[in-house]
């Protein structure tokens, strides 16, 4: 069995199984927890929970006014690599093929050149994010293994994908295998680290939104 056979076969199989197991475990164990009953009386003008949730989510898409200046760069940089990753994952023809193989749905792809440029920008943005984490005393203090390892498993597929598409340094079959293995690593780590925010961000921000709107907190 070649490295590519291993990557496309058993490695992906195990990674996707671990991903599915982990995500279901974490989501259900959180969602089915006993909820603390909010005994406070809601404000008379408090909107319904769904509206509060939506407002909370939308409001948190941008930092509040007093913090805009200090968090502007971090917020913008965050958007750059999040949007970049989405464009890479859902825009490149080869990735759409992979997702089509899993879910049976496909959509038109972006030109490979566009995705390549976006990948370079995304990579630069991720490097900036790490630099900021390492240079900011506060961030460095609160950073844990999860932060650094998650950064690594996110960057590896971007780098290996760029190298594979460019056919640099090694035969394509090796580059493709390394890229797929890096994705397998990301999938395995996903449910157990901060990457889980891809699912949980909707819950946490909505829940905060409900809580604040019920109490009339301006956010």
């Amino acid at each position, binding site marked *: 069995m*070649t490295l590519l056979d291993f990557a*496309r076969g058993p490695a992906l199989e195990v990674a996707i*199984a671990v991903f599915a197991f982990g995500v*279901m*475990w974490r989501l*259900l*164990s959180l969602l089915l927890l006993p909820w603390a009953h909010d005994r406070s009386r809601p404000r008379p003008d408090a909107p319904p929970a769904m509206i509060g949730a939506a407002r909370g989510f939308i409001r948190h898409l941008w930092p509040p006014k007093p913090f805009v200046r200090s968090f502007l760069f971090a917020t913008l940089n965050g958007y750059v690599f999040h949007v970049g990753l989405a464009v890479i994952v859902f825009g490149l023809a080869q990735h759409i*093929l992979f997702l089509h*193989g899993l879910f049976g749905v496909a959509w038109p792809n972006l030109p490979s050149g566009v995705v390549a440029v976006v990948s370079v920008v995304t990579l630069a943005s991720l490097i900036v994010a790490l630099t900021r984490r390492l240079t900011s005393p506060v961030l460095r203090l609160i950073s844990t293994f999860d932060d650094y390892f998650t950064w690594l498993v996110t960057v590896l597929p971007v780098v290996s994908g760029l190298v594979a598409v460019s056919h640099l340094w090694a035969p394509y079959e090796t580059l*493709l295998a390394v890229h797929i293995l890096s994705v397998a690593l990301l999938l395995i780590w996903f449910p157990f680290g901060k990457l889980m925010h891809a699912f949980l961000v909707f819950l946490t921000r909505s829940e905060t939104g409900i809580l604040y709107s019920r109490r009339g907190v301006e956010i």
Partner: protein
Amino acid sequence: MPRMSDRETIGDALARRGVSRRALLKYASYLASVMALPPTVSNAMAEALAKARRQSVIWLSFQECTGCTESLTRSFSPTIEDMIFNLISLDYHETLQAVSGRAAEEARLAAMEENKGKYVVVVDGSVSTKDGGVYSTSAGKTNLQVLTETAQHALALISVGTCAAFGGIPRAKPNPTGAMPVSDIVKDKPVINISGCPPIPEAMAGTIAYLVTFNKLPDLDHLNRPKAFFGDSIHDRCYRRPFYDKGLFAKRFDDEGARKGWCLYEVGCKGPVTYNACATLKWNGGVSFPIQSGHGCLGCSEPNFWDKGGFYNPLSTGTNIPAAIVGGAAAAGAAVGVTSALLARRRKRLAAQEPRS
């Protein structure tokens, strides 16, 4: 098959057939260019070819479909006639020889005896090894016996076709005959692999010409294939490559992209991971090759190409992701999650029941 004098040089044989020195030079130039040798080599090659004795070749056909021989007999240039009568003395070839039975086997044994340590063994087909190799026999001997016996005093072996080189289709799962490539059985002799299903005729002829001319093995890759023919991937030399780079793919064999000649990656082309000269030498005298005909590369010159997850599955997809395993993992995760939440609820209920102090 009438056996010609092995003492005769290739030059003598050519002269006898009325082939001029100029024709030999052209021929040597062609071979040199096909093998990407420097232009200055062609003169030396012509000289060496003229003086060289015709190489004794014993051709063994094992578990194969004769497609490799079919491919070679349709070799455009040099033709099989050139190969047989000018470059090599084909002393034994079950498909091409006229004699049969004991006379044929005697021809093989005689060639082995006369050219001990100097003959080249060409093998097409994989070797059955299960149950003593009984699944493929000829003249009462298993292929395994014939190969071991013939290889013993050979100068070198050439595995022609993917079956001989890597086991090929006979070795595909579940490999009922225990098929093995030649290189897994013969360990003490150089084995050159000229893979492909079938192999490109020029790769075969060019490699034999190189052996005869230079009396040494050509540069080989990590799978013992001549780099001159297997140095580049199909993808790197494919005329559809610009479409790959632009992200323009045919989605089906009958869509607009297919009609416009876009890249066939999405319909399963294995060109990016297949090393062969199809895209440059092409087939039938340079007329076309599979991708040019509108079908993706099957990757036939690579080991285990039959078991690589389907010819029509794109390379970027997984080869074996059973829904049952993923679904089972998700169900197991859900069960653990629900159990964990229920335990939390139970803990909360028990805590509420405890008398407050």
